[in-house]
């Protein structure tokens, strides 16, 4: 069997004294969409931050296309072809929508053109010259996703893309993720809403207190739902 696209082994991550990830291991194969489920504070965001290197106080191994990422500065990780959509969206207030969109450099061939992106997110085109943070929450989320689709990155880290958004926008974002999955992107999706995740994912990881406590294919979601209720506290 080929090596997975991303292989994390025994990952530990720290915020100063606080030991946020305590030996996380997980794998994502090329073209797969996996979710990280788990209640607030479980370590989902920290896992994504450790992969992309925003959190650099980390130990263990993160291999992407066979390359070790632990120890690399974050810009080299971004250049390796990983697109990050942070939980707080990270839209820049002092940049226009256009400038936000064009900010991340292209890291590989095959990224979407600006025209294709505006076809996907027509709202953004009308707001091209507005300051990024003048957009609504949903538009900011779309911009945060659009931004990494331009770059040619094939592994996307999406941190709660539907958090706090209205149902129609959640649905739209769901459609976009499904489309990306259809195009062969590899996606790690952090979600609180596993009903939403169930429609999109191939596999799920469940996190708790800085550990991965369970993993199962999407087909097993129904039989796992009781255990999930306990872990997600819903």
């Amino acid at each position: 069997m080929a090596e997975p696209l991303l292989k994390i082994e025994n990952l530990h991550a720290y915020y100063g004294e606080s030991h946020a990830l305590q030996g996380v291991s997980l794998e994502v194969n090329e073209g797969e969409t996996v979710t990280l489920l788990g209640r607030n504070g479980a370590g989902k965001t920290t896992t994504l931050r450790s992969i992309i290197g925003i959190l650099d106080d980390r130990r263990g191994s993160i291999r992407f296309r066979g390359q070790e990422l632990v120890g690399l500065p974050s810009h080299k990780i971004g250049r390796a072809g990983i697109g990050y959509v942070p939980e707080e969206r990270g839209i820049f207030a002092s940049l226009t929508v256009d400038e936000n969109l064009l900010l991340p450099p292209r890291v590989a061939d095959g990224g979407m053109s600006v025209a294709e992106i505006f076809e996907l997110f027509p709202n953004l085109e009308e707001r091209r010259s507005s300051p990024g943070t003048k957009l609504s929450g949903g538009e900011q989320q779309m911009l945060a996703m659009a931004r990494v689709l331009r770059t040619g990155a094939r592994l996307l880290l999406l941190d709660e893309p539907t958090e706090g958004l209205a149902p129609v926008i959640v649905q739209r974002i769901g459609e976009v993720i499904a489309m990306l999955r259809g195009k062969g992107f590899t996606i790690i999706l952090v979600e609180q809403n596993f009903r939403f995740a169930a429609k999109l994912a191939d596999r799920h990881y469940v996190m708790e207190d800085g550990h991965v406590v369970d993993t199962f294919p999407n087909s097993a979601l129904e039989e796992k739902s009781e255990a999930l209720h306990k872990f997600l506290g819903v």
Partner: protein
Amino acid sequence: MFGVPAQALYGQILLGLINGSFYALLSLGLAVIFGMLNVINFAHGALYMLGAFAAWFALNLFGIDYWWSLLLAPLVVGLVGAVIERVFLARIKNLDHLYGLLLTFGLALIIEGGFRHVYGSSGQAYGTPEELRGAVNLGFMIMPKYRGWVVIASLIVCFATWFIIEKTRLGAYLRAATENPKLVQAFGINVPLMITLTYAGGVALAGFAGVLAAPIYQVSPLMGTNLIIVVFAVVVVGGMGSIMGSIVTGYMLGVLEGLTKVFYPQASSIVIFVIMAVVLLARPAGLFGRGD
């Protein structure tokens, strides 16, 4: 007007514009550096002096003329800045901002002290370039050519800097990295390198101001110390970190200082500090500051 001869009035406005040119160039560099590094660069005055000395050395040791110095001295000062950033500032970037201030203050003392040790505190003359000697009659006043040139050169450099930061792709990186450096880096941009270049660019502006100043003021080890105190007041009035704010405030306060010399000379050396105090009371973030 008010019994003040027009010639004196225009003369002081011109002087104010010249001082304002230096305030603007220097506070602009401070603003750029502060925005990106969160460091209040107390070495700025010393690096301005270094720019003037670089021009003086270039002329006296190598026969390099003013125009070349205008280009080369900022490069030299920028290079010194890059070394300072890599060797010192990069190492303390995770500490409290006060450490950056203390470190650059210490560097200023060392650089200025070193030059004073060798050159004393008296100044070295630097001749006005031939092309800019003499004066032109503007009709309402006689203007020495070099002074006019200082204002024009400073305006061009200030607005070019503003343009780069506000209107170009590179500037978008800078603005974004000022807001959220980690995210910009995660996108694949070498932010640590950008920080080094920003510091180098900011102090190169000071070096450029130093060369402009050389023919007007003398080239002396302490030429930066007095000036920089006023420049910090300008920065406080304009709002730390605002690009256009520091340019506009620089010229505005220069002219205001000039006008004070005409109408109430006794107050001219303190007027900027009085304005600073008032602004601090009324708008602590500065006139153009975003206040966060």
